[in-house]
């Protein structure tokens, strides 16, 4: 059952220096009980995307649709949105120290959330629910810890408390914005484990935003890679990791240390993500793409089907068969480059080759 259907979402911010086009036509769906991993770096628009879904972007110009359970989230008033937030969609933020109120006890905050949405519940019942939730997320001695303040919790425990709060009203969907980035590796493992377990128990859909490909490889079912405000590639996890088509995805996978032998030079993507105010022409990734073609400089590709069995799409002009990390795919790419790089792309390719990061 499709829980969330986002159609051509566009978000722009007016700023003194020009219009910041943070999200430029993003579409995706999320099924109940599934996990979608949205991967992107700074400036990819991933956080603005989810903030917009929750109505947390005042001052933005938004177009498109986001149909959740029959209603378009983008058209809801603030009051209506408040009813949705927390009870049907809840959020887990990156830094639990700043998203939990420092001056109120943790248990009180959870109970408050419950009481805000369930009008006929008593204070006592809400408090009991809070204790139960804390126990469910693995906090030891929940009956005592429920009266602690956030600063008395460790980072991992705070994040668990956030998850408890997010789960308190049994939402249909949880949006997790970099929930484990600020945590230590061992704690991260615990939190991801917990999220998976809870998701399986309650059949909640999870929208996980992260820049960490490892986290996505672990818990996502489907993946959407974002670049410069749009989806560069999306599809099932296996397709993205083992048959990446978009050169950005491929570049990301190749630039992380575990892909090269220890001590060998890493293969970074040259250059930097573009300014969202002054975006390049054509495909926004072309100034950094090793496989840039003439067409890429002028025409921005839409999402094109890569595989007919799985829903694997990529916004790239390279042929669909040029997917994967192996030699075959590489040959196809090189062939395409030879055939289709004669004009504008030649200069771009030379600039990329001359980039200091690329030179040995």
């Amino acid at each position, binding site marked *: 059952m499709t829980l969330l259907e986002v159609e051509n979402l566009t978000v722009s911010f007016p*700023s003194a220096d020009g219009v910041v086009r943070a999200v430029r036509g993003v579409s995706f769906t999320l099924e109940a009980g599934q996990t979608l991993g949205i991967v992107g770096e700074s400036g990819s628009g991933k956080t*603005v995307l989810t903030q917009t879904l929750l109505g947390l972007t*005042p001052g933005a110009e938004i177009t498109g649709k986001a149909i959740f359970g029959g209603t378009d989230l983008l058209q809801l008033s603030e009051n209506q949105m408040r009813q949705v937030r927390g009870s049907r969609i809840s959020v887990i933020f990156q830094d639990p120290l700043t998203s939990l109120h420092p001056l109120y006890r943790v248990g009180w905050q959870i109970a408050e959330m419950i009481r805000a949405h369930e009008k006929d519940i008593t204070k006592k019942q809400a408090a009991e629910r809070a204790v139960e939730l804390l126990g469910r997320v693995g906090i030891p001695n929940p009956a005592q810890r429920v009266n602690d303040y956030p600063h008395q919790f460790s980072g991992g425990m705070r994040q668990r408390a956030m998850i408890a709060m997010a789960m308190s009203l049994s939402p249909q969907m949880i949006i997790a914005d970099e929930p484990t980035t600020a945590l230590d590796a061992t704690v991260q493992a615990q939190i991801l484990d917990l999220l998976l377990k809870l998701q399986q128990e309650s059949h909640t859909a999870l929208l996980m935003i992260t820049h960490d490909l490892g986290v996505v490889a672990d818990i996502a079912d*489907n993946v959407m890679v974002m670049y410069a405000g749009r989806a560069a590639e999306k599809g099932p996890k296996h397709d993205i990791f083992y048959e990446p088509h978009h050169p950005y995805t491929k570049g990301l996978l190749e630039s992380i240390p575990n892909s090269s032998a220890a001590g060998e030079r890493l293969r970074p993507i040259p250059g*930097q993500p573009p*300014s969202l105010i002054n975006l390049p022409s054509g495909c926004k990734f072309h100034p950094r793409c090793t496989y840039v073609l003439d067409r890429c400089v002028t025409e921005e590709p839409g999402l*094109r089907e890569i595989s007919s069995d799985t829903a694997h*799409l990529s916004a790239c002009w390279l042929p669909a068969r040029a997917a994967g990390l192996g030699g075959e795919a590489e040959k196809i790419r090189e062939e395409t480059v030879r055939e289709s790089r004669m004009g504008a792309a030649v200069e771009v390719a030379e600039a990329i080759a001359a980039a200091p990061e690329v030179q040995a």
Partner: protein
Amino acid sequence: MSLSELEFQAAAVEGAPEQAVEGRSQWQLTWRRLRSDKVAVTAMITIVVMVGLAIAAPAIAALVHHPPNIAYPNTGENAVGNPVGPFTNGFWLGTDDTGRDLMVRIFYGARISLFVGLVTTAVATVAGVAVGLIAGYFGGIVDAVLARFTDAVLAFPYVVLALALAVVLGPSLAVIIGVITFFSWAGISRIVRGQTLSLKEKEYIEAARSLGAGPFRIMFIDILPNLLAPVLVLATLYIPAAVVFEATLSYLGLGIQPPTASWGNILAAAQNFYQVAWWYTVFPALALLITTLAFNLLGDGIRDAMDPTTERLLAARRGRKARARSRKNAAGPDQAPADTAGSASA
């Protein structure tokens, strides 16, 4: 997630600077924001006008042919010897109880007030910053001593000291400047100390230490530039306090002595005549009020201009209207090529 972080992301700091907008220094950005703040601009203009009038006081006196300290009992006083009102006999704002031109005296008073306000604030700022910086940076015993001294100064009743000094040294401009400066630096020092304490913990200070920078280099080259912004706001807000302080002292007879005009001593004399000469009280008070208000509003404006979040609130207001507009256009204009595969499941 706060809106500031959002905009940070939205503005894609990761972008290439060449393509993006030209870099601007903090001061340029502040100035730009200040310029668009109507209240602050009005305040600035008011101050400029006031300063201009103060500087031009002698010229104005010549224009109306009424030097500030010359009494005109014939034209400046009515039949019973009371001051004449505005626009009478060539006195634009009326006269005081001895028949002197009130307007000219007010502008001469402005000279004193502004001079005292600016000079005392300048000296107090330099002293306050130095003390606060040293106390905050060194901490320990240095801080303990300096902070306690600052507290003592803040607790001291200034009127008593002013009175004592006036008795011992005789009231004068120098005494006023001394007293006001002495009591102003402490407030600035306390705030600077607080700022220094927090700036001291920043990583770039640690970096400077790791490079081998000595304490004075760190204080003046690394910390001080970060203090300038709050200190500027503070100083702008201290000027009107100094102006009022001077007026108060002169009103009490401890500062500028008649016949030299000062808003304070004019008001002191005016209080006996309020029933017969409303202008005698109102105009100097108005001058004081306008000056003080202008500096305060300017200070607020500078503080808002330095704080980037204000711009976002303005943008938010604009955005809400835009959002309402876009809700009317149901489909919304296409801004980028739509996904050809439509919304197939991800």
